[in-house]
């Protein structure tokens, strides 16, 4: 029984990291139709930002998180203003451009911070596990879990309960008509991109104490995030949350029986089979057109 409970908690913990990583990707795709291949590299930037602030400036972990969101968000905003905005209407080219940006970011980090692995220290007060309901739960994973919930809630409120959200949804539904009503599309796009990038940076900051920080750390995370986005359907926040949950639990479960790699291969296979029969994702209604 505790075995099963532990397994569920492991799955939830994987799911919350997945959701954290895919949230920004899904928002950018949902609003702008842009798959941001530099997402993993924004994540990497976030991790490096924490490492730098912690080791060079001696900042605490939690203040770092807030700073990272704005730093990486600003970089995302800059990228959108200078490059991405020239490529709307050319979806394949946006993939390429963001991929190019990804390489540039990766190499810039490799040249400046070095290619060796870096480590971010987990804050002392989060190292010891907590005892909840008779189970030992890692306090740090609990932090990730709660931050994820807060971010999803913030995103939900942002989209559905602010005037920015109304404009954002208008642009999502029909960019042309939205513009006719005086909405500044360019501004919505750049802010959305910045928000998505900021979320990626935050995700990177949060995973940095769990694993080593390296220039190419983003790739693995972002591939899982693709699977979440593809299977969840991008239009709904709920789809992303639910599919991150399902994929997290499944990969935790598969990994329990085999190993991480085979779990991933099996998941990929399942997702490909899934899109054959439900190309629009599990939770979205309209048909997907890349």
């Amino acid at each position, binding site marked *: 029984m505790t075995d099963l409970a532990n397994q569920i908690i492991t799955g939830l913990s994987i799911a919350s990291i997945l959701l954290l990583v895919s949230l920004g990707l899904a928002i950018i795709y949902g609003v702008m139709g842009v*798959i941001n291949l530099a997402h993993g590299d924004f994540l990497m930037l976030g991790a490096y930002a924490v490492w730098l602030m912690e080791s060079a400036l001696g900042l605490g972990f939690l203040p770092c998180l807030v700073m990272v969101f704005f730093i990486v968000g600003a970089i995302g905003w800059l990228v959108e203003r200078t490059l991405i905005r020239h490529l709307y209407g050319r979806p394949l080219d946006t993939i390429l451009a963001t991929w190019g940006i990804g390489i540039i970011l990766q190499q810039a980090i490799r040249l400046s911070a070095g290619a060796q692995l870096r480590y971010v220290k987990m804050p002392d007060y989060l190292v010891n596990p907590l005892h909840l309901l008779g189970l030992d739960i890692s306090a740090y994973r609990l932090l990730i879990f709660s931050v994820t919930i807060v971010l999803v809630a913030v995103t939900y409120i942002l989209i559905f309960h602010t005037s920015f959200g109304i404009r954002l949804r208008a642009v999502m539904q029909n960019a*042309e008509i939205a513009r006719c009503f005086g909405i500044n599309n360019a501004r919505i796009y750049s802010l959305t991109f910045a928000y998505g990038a900021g979320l990626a940076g935050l995700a990177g900051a949060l995973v940095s104490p769990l694993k080593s920080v390296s220039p190419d750390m983003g790739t693995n995370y972002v591939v899982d995030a693709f699977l979440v*986005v593809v299977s969840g359907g991008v239009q709904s926040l709920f789809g992303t949350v639910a599919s991150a949950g399902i994929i997290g639990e499944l990969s935790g479960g598969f990994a329990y029986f085999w190993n991480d790699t085979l779990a991933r291969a099996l998941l990929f296979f399942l997702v490909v089979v899934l899109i054959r029969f439900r190309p629009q994702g599990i939770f979205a209604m309209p048909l997907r057109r890349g």
Partner: protein
Amino acid sequence: MRRIFISRGHIIGYAAFALAILVVPLFIDDPYLLNKLARYLIFGILAAALALSWGYTGILNLGQAVSFGLGSYCMAMTLKLHTIPIQTGAAGLPDFMVWNNVKSLPWFWEPFHSTAFAVVAGVAFPVVVALLLGWFVFRARVTGVYVSIITLAMLVVVNLVIVDQQRFTGGFNGLTDLADLKLFGIDFDPYSSATYYLIALSLLATLMIGELVVRSKTGLIMQAIRDDETRVRYFGYDVARYQIFAFCVSAGLSGFAGMLYAMVMAFASPTFLSVQISLSIVIWCAVGGRESLIGSALGAILVTGIQGGLSETPAFLNTWMLIMGALFVAVVLFLPKGLISIVQLGMARLAGKKISALTEDEAPLPRGHKLGIG
């Protein structure tokens, strides 16, 4: 029979290219350099294969390296079994299997005792994988960026599995210490001109196959699908079938390139299926000209040639990647049809025609968001 239209400029271009790559060995007696040039030509095959699916059919395959890597492993497996002394260990096993406590040769290694089987498998295996993925993806009418991220995800997954299954694949080190390929009494030493000619002829054959495909009726429909998939569907064509066809041809050619690469490098490793290689293929295509087979091939030879010339010093390699990234972004932004479009423009000027280097349909459109989000 539809007349296949080929302009004079095209024929001259191809003839000059064929001549150039075929006479090169006559002037080079450094086997190391010849080996390097052969590698560049293999990259040319890969780039032309991607041009077929991306430039002509609109399928941006970010997992091209899967086909390449599978082809290279097929070749490496047979060459591994032909090494002399054949094997280490009592049961006659490849060395890494002995190290990993594998007791007998796994069933899927058995047929690779036959070189003929390996050569067929090196093309057929990637094609079957592409066929399966293509059937699932294209039949579901998933297109565009989704195909790209699914192929990229597949690349990462396949790479992880190969590294993970160390017992059967040699894991991180891959298959090393391979024999030379011996076919029809010729020993294809990686540093010999025989290997170079084999590769040069393969590249030319690839370009010919590609030109035949894109100039056939099927090729025209492929290009129509690239430009407007929905319209082609309304004309009654089975869009998915053409997409799967292009995807599979591209995969088969890449698998073949992979086999050649395993021969030339004398090893096969998971780096052949890395995101880095896939990315490079896309860059070569974009730089050379994605809508031209020979343009893509030249792009690959040019870019890897410059890279090979400059990155002899490892310190430069990182800077090189930075430059590549910037070049890539610049080409995507300003020269969507690649360098070959400049050549074509020049040739058209000479012929007194007016053609724009940038396509008329690639101007940034107002955001009509046909993503099914509304």
